[in-house]
């Protein structure tokens, strides 16, 4: 274990803004293996040393690691401020906040710390407020002990017995409205050995918002109680406003760095399918708990829950954070951007190498033959040669998948069309099979076939005539021609039993 001095120096270093440290912390063993015994082993005795004032940060920033190796008394002072802020461009909303931001200030303590919590309710506020910290062991999570009228403050103390990432929120009646107005945030209780050191840490929290006006309707928008009860949010947002984490405010990182996100979901109603487009989470401490899952694409975060996720950035560019319940991302605002700067890494991701038209197996030059044949047919000057050319192009589509481009089929599975004794015997069979399908045992060139050929009746009479003509004139078949009218005639026949 490190000496206290080293830890303090480490903390100072981080506090000074250097977010990287060459020393590696021991990989957090209890975070991924064994049983931490939870609160039963979370009490490391009375606080030691002088009380520490907790450094609180506004989103998307996260306070530096506590760097402590012994339980401390930590003083947290959080002020509730009711204020009007932008929820989207040209749209304002009255938010109720912990610390003046949505989500509220990030609190970081260490397991075993004794936290003296001061909740201040600003004098201009109209509402009483309180706080329920999910990281508190005790009835109400502090709610009853922190119920505070405007212009008052209250204090309560708790010991952080469980390590993890915990949501806090206001629990004053009407609770849903207090939460819907932005009253939530995160508290990280570090395990005693700390979390693995990373290059960057960010704080993101999702919330759903209910305004009387429509999405992006300009002006001041009051809270819509009915929409909230019906769980029909107008906005679903990261960090309280549309654009809070995009453009100039995008989260920043460099390639080669490892980023850890602390992501909470304040709700009040929705559960989030949290995903970062273009990245795979190397680790997810799902539900904010002590264990991690690896190689995760999307992680579910319940309302009133949180998760930590970590990933290394290999390729530069913009990575988009979304709620993959995807209409929320594109029509309600649940979008944020993490911008990674650094040199391209073509070995891992090439970027766009080819950009050309794709027409499936109907490639461009051949389609011209079909077009020529169609034009000739409409003018009554269609030649067999034109039909064959058009038929060849069309055959290259669906037909060749089974019968093969050279018409040989697959012995015992797909009957051959090349040098087919059946076609020689019955020249109408290609057109009939196309329009009505084939079922039951057949024998071609001495081999039995039992596969089913589905009817291809989506083909036009023109197409059927051209494909059949192509087959009749290819691969040693006897030749001949099927006209559009004949194809139409065959289509009208009842299918063979």
């Amino acid at each position, binding site marked *: 274990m490190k000496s206290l001095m080293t830890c303090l120096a480490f903390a100072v270093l981080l506090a000074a803004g250097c977010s990287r440290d060459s020393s590696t912390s021991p990989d957090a063993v209890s975070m991924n293996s064994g049983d931490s015994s939870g609160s039963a082993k979370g009490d490391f005795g009375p606080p030691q040393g002088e009380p520490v004032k907790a450094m609180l940060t506004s989103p998307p920033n996260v306070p530096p690691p506590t760097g402590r190796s012994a339980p401390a008394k930590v003083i947290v002072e959080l002020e509730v401020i009711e204020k009007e802020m932008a929820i989207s461009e040209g749209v304002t909303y009255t938010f109720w906040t912990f610390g003046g931001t949505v989500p509220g200030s990030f609190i970081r303590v260490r397991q075993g710390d004794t936290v003296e919590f001061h909740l201040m309710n600003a004098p*201009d506020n109209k509402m*009483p407020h309180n706080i329920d910290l999910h990281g508190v062991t005790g009835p109400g999570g502090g709610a009853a002990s922190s119920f505070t009228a405007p212009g008052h403050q209250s204090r309560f103390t708790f010991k952080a017995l469980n390590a993890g990432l915990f949501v806090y929120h206001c629990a*004053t*009646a*009407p*609770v849903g409205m207090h939460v819907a107005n932005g009253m939530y945030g995160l508290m990280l209780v570090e395990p005693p050995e700390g979390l693995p050191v990373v290059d960057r840490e960010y704080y993101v929290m999702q919330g759903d918002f209910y305004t009387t006006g429509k999405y992006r309707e300009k002006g001041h928008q*009051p809270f819509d*109680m009915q929409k909230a009860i019906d769980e029909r949010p107008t906005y679903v947002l990261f960090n309280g406003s549309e654009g809070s984490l995009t453009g100039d405010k995008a989260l920043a990182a460099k390639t080669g760095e490892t980023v850890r996100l602390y992501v909470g979901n304040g709700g009040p109603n929705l559960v989030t399918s949290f995903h970062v487009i273009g990245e795979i989470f190397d680790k997810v401490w799902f539900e904010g708990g002590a264990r991690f899952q690896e190689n995760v694409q999307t992680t579910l975060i319940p309302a009133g829950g949180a998760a930590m996720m970590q990933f290394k950035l290999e390729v530069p560019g913009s990575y988009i954070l979304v709620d993959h319940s995807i209409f929320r991302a594109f029509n309600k605002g649940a979008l944020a951007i993490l911008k990674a700067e650094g040199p391209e890494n073509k070995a891992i991701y090439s970027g766009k190498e080819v950009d050309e038209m794709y027409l499936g197996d109907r490639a461009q030059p051949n389609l011209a033959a079909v077009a020529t044949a169609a034009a000739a047919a409409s003018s009554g000057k269609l030649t067999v040669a034109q039909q064959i050319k058009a038929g060849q192009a069309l055959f290259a589509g669906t037909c060749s998948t089974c019968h093969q481009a050279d018409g040989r089929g697959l012995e015992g599975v797909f009957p051959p069309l090349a040098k087919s004794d059946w076609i020689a015997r019955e020249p109408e069979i290609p057109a009939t099979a196309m329009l009505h399908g084939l079922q039951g045992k057949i024998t071609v060139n001495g081999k039995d076939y039992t596969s089913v050929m589905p009817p291809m009746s989506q083909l036009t009479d023109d197409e059927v005539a051209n494909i059949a003509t192509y087959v009749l004139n290819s691969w040693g078949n006897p030749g001949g021609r099927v006209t559009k009218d004949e194809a139409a005639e065959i289509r009208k026949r009842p299918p063979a039993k």
Partner: protein
Amino acid sequence: MNQLSLAGLGRLAALLFLGMPLAGALAGESGEYVAVPGGVFQSALRYEDVKDGVRIASFALMRAPVTNEQLLAFVKANPAWRRDRVPSVFAESRFLSHWKGPVELGPQALPQQPVTWVSWFAAGAYCEAQGARLPTWSEWEFAAAADETRTDARRDPAWRERILDWYSRPSTSALPRVGLQAPNAYGVQDLHGLVWEWTGDFSSLLVSGDNRNQGDADDTRFCGAGAISMKDNDDYAVMMRVAMLSSLEGADATANLGFRCAKDLP
């Protein structure tokens, strides 16, 4: 008390108006009172001992909240309630702190603005000096259920929305004068949209400020008359008033809490 007939009510109201100096409507010391005919009221709160609604006797309610000017006159007449003389058990240190001096209003407290930064004890004393009292919670809610045309507009979503909008905004700008909003169906003004108001029995509001405890009442917080909780979970404005009042002690004062007085009707 039985419900009064409409004709009787009209007479009562007329008598009441005759009995009050009209000048008192705006500038008077005692304020103008309006008769509120009683009735049976379906409260948004759940009272265990009340089956068919709360019975409200007819009463008179001040048409508008008490103003700075009115309270100043009271303090001058009753110097024991000066902010520099009142015992701290009756009023906290910020009592009337927005006044320029103990008996001087100044620019932060205009005469016609509703008085704020006033404790429950001081509010009660003021009313008593007028031969009145603070309204009960039920009386206040009964009168406040009315909009401009209906005596009970509580089920109207638009009306709820209007009230909520005010409650949900901080009071960072100066308060308007009293009496600017349209009177409600009883002729009472400013019950919503101006200031919170004390009620006489605010401290017996036993609904938990943390409304997640509904139905699982912490017995130690309840006494006598039985547990009450929210009956109408949709009425957020009422929930907020309960939360606000239950967060306070009698000596407390806040920037947006005032009061008005009520009287029994003979």
